[in-house]
C-alpha cells in the first residue's frame, strides 16, 4: 500500500514515453504497401530523348534503384550530391523518374548539378508516380532482380542512410 503514491508517477512516465515516441516519428513517412510487391509496369519516354522509352521490364535481372525527383523540388537538390556519390560507387544503376516536371527545367538542373542517373524516365503528368504511391518527392525505391520492390525511402537520401542501409542491402540483393 505504501507504493501507492508512485502510481501517478508511473502513469506520467508512461505518458511521456508514448509522447516521446510519437513526437520523434515523422508522420509523413507512411509505410508503403508496395514493399515486397512487383514494381508496377509502365512505359514512358526518356527525359533526354522523347523518342526513346523506358520500362522497368528492361531492368529485369539486375538490382536497381529508382529515384523519383523533380527540378522544382528543393529537397531533391539537397539530395543530389548523395545520388552522385551513389552513382559513382557503381554498385547498382540509378534510374531517375522525373515527376511532374518540365523537360527543359529538368535537363537544366542536371546540366548544372551533374547527372547521377543512367537515364531518367519522364513522368510529366505524374501518372506513373500515382502507381508507385509517390506523395512527396524525393522518393527512392530499391528493386531486385525479379522486379520486386524491396525498400522505399521517402525524403532525401543521406550519406548515413547509404552506408548503413542502402549499400548493405544492395550487396545482399546482388548475391541472391
Amino acid at each position, binding site marked *: 500500500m505504501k507504493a501507492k503514491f508512485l502510481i501517478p508517477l508511473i502513469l506520467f512516465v508512461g505518458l511521456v514515453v508514448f509522447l516521446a515516441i510519437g513526437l520523434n516519428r515523422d*508522420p*509523413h513517412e507512411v*509505410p508503403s504497401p508496395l514493399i515486397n510487391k512487383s514494381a508496377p509496369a509502365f512505359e514512358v519516354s526518356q527525359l533526354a530523348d522523347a523518342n526513346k522509352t523506358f520500362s522497368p521490364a528492361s531492368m529485369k535481372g539486375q538490382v536497381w534503384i529508382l529515384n523519383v525527383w523533380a527540378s522544382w523540388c528543393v529537397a531533391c537538390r539537397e539530395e543530389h550530391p548523395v545520388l552522385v556519390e551513389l552513382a559513382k560507387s557503381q554498385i547498382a544503376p540509378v534510374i531517375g523518374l522525373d515527376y511532374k516536371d518540365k523537360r527543359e527545367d529538368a535537363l537544366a538542373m542536371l546540366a548544372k548539378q551533374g547527372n547521377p542517373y543512367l537515364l531518367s524516365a519522364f513522368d510529366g*503528368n*505524374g501518372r506513373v508516380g*500515382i502507381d508507385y*504511391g509517390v*506523395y512527396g518527392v524525393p522518393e527512392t525505391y530499391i528493386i531486385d532482380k525479379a522486379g520486386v520492390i524491396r525498400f522505399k525511402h521517402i525524403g532525401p537520401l543521406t550519406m548515413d542512410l547509404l552506408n548503413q542501409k542502402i549499400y548493405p542491402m544492395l550487396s545482399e540483393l546482388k548475391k541472391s
Partner: protein
Amino acid sequence: MRLILLIAVCLFSLGSVFAKDAAPLADDPVTEQRLISISEEMRCLVCQNESLAGSRSDLANDLRREIRILIKEGKSDDQIRSFMVERYGDFVLYRPPVKPVTWLLWIGPFVILGLGIAGLLMYLRRRDSSLPNVTLTDADNQKIDALLNASDKKEG
C-alpha cells in the same frame, strides 16, 4: 459621364471576380457527386489533416482526376477504394478496416472506458465501506433541532 465611368469600372471588376479559375469538374454532376462522396472518406497524403475532397494540393488534384477516370470506367466504390489502398496503404482511409493490426485502434478506446468505469466503481465501493456508520442519539437530534431553529430565527 462620371456615372457611366463608374458603371464601367464596376462591370470590369465584376469580370475579374468571375474570372477566378474553377476546379476542373466532370461533365456530369452524378460523377462529381460520387467523386465527393468517395474522396471525403480519404486522407490527402500531402496535407494529412485534409480530406482528398477538400485539399488543394497538386497530388490531391491528380488523384481526384484519377478517381474521375475510374468512375467513368464504371468501377465500383470498393474497386476505387482498393485502387487507392494498393498505392498508399490503409492510411488513406479515414475508416481503417477492422483487422488484427487495427484491433487496438478500434477496441482500445472502449477498453480504456471499461477500465475507467471499473476503477470508479471500485473506488466508490471502497469509500462507502470505509465511512463510519453513525447512528444519531436523541440528544444529537435535539442539538440539531436547536441549531436549525436558531438559524431560522436569524434569517427570519
